[in-house]
């Protein structure tokens, strides 16, 4: 452990001990799935005082995708002359009647792509097929999708369709906090989402709910420093936005990316898996780009979000339960045979707990 890490841990220990002694133990939510994994992997969790509770939030795009969306993607995969283009994380998420992997086994064309640009290329190379891009992701991912739609529009590529399920972080934070008493003292805010939205985006959260928000990268010292900044604010009764990833993240964010997204998409109500509808928390194609909309092309509607029996993914991603509290965790639900989406994605809280914290989780259970 380097001296700068030691110094941060020492101050965290002192401040958290004082707060616990005063009957105010601290709980911090990490919004981002990459933070969830990094906090385990770097050993940060093992360095933190036991009185500091870290709670995972709804920041894994796969985990918050409703089952209705997966079912719809599977239905579309069964249509004739269709290629589903998707990020790899989505292929194994179970729906009501199986996953995209199941559909592939039944002969459907499922292409794993690295970028939305690849979906445009697929459409261009397969003019007799309809290429449906499963557009999931938070603010980091959406600009590339928007740009790809503009590219297809510009070049008259008319067989690309978008099944949009893009999500917005700030409305989700409002929903978490607006529901009443939320036992969270502050937020560790996502580094790469914040490149796009900027650290200023968290000001309404800090101001309206009195919660410190600190933007961090994914390295041990940077994450610990962010946690320290949050705890310092809690101890001082403050609620400001701070950015300890300041060279990478700016206050206004990437304005080019924001403008491109705004040109193509508009906010809409969106269903979050196991949470339900959150107003203006998703993005849909603007009317000018409606011809790319897969739902209207096939005249379909999203089905209901249904949770598998026993799965508590919804509580896990709202910070209301840990994976250890799920009866399926590690027995009925594993990364090899996942039941809920939090076990499918490598950034899912349950997958992270299974990989790094299984033994502790069993002890807790």
């Amino acid at each position, binding site marked *: 452990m380097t001296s700068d890490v030691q110094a941060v841990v020492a101050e965290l220990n002192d401040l958290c001990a004082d707060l616990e002694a005063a009957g105010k133990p601290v709980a911090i939510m990490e919004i981002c799935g990459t933070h969830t*994994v990094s906090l385990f992997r770097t050993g940060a969790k093992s360095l933190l005082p036991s009185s500091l509770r870290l709670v995972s939030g709804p920041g894994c795009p796969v985990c918050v995708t409703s089952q209705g969306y997966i079912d719809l993607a599977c239905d579309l995969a069964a249509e004739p002359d269709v290629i589903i283009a998707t*990020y790899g994380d989505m292929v194994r998420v179970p729906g009501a009647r199986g996953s995209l992997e199941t559909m592939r086994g039944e002969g459907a064309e499922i292409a794993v792509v690295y970028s939305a640009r690849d979906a445009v290329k697929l459409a261009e190379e397969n003019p007799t097929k309809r290429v449906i891009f499963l557009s999931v992701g938070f603010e980091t991912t959406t600009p590339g999708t928007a*740009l790809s739609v503009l590219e297809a529009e510009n070049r008259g590529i008319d067989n690309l369709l978008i099944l949009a399920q893009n999500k917005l972080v700030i409305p989700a934070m409002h929903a978490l906090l607006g529901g009443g008493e939320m036992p969270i003292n502050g937020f560790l805010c996502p580094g790469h989402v914040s490149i796009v939205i900027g650290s200023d985006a968290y000001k309404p959260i800090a101001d309206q709910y009195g919660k410190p928000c600190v933007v961090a990268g994914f390295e041990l010292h940077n994450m610990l420093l962010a946690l320290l900044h949050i705890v310092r604010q809690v101890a001082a009764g403050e609620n400001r936005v701070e950015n300890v990833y300041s060279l990478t993240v700016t206050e206004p964010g990437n304005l080019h990316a924001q403008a491109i997204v705004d040109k193509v998409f508009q906010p809409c109500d969106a269903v979050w898996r196991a949470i339900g509808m959150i107003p203006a928390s998703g993005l849909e194609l603007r009317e000018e780009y409606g011809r790319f909309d897969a739902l209207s092309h096939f005249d379909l509607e999203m089905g209901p979000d249904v949770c598998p029996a026993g799965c508590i993914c919804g509580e896990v991603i709202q910070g209301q339960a840990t994976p250890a509290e799920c009866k399926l965790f590690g027995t009925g639900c594993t990364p090899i045979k996942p039941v809920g989406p939090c076990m499918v994605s490598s950034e899912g809280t349950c997958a992270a707990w299974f990989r790094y914290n299984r033994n502790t989780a069993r002890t807790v259970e």
Partner: protein
Amino acid sequence: MCLAVPGKILEIVDSGEPVIGRTAMVDFQGSRLEASLAMVPEAEVDDWVLVHAGFAMSVLDEKEAKENWDMLKAALGDDVELVGNEPTPKGDEDDQ
């Protein structure tokens, strides 16, 4: 999935795609991939950029970029990936 990975721009070309515009061949410590520069019009050859799903999202200074790479490796190790399940930069395991 929102992970962006730092790499150095080796070469900038016109993609021939009107909206995508300039693209760069980016070196991710041995693994080379193309990335659009549409979101970072200020980027030039030898700049370090953070790339997510084929799009450069931010220009970094070199020191910051190397710290970024080291911390991603420390944080995620084998899981360092550009988005989804592929592709994963290779060849970084032996360098450290």
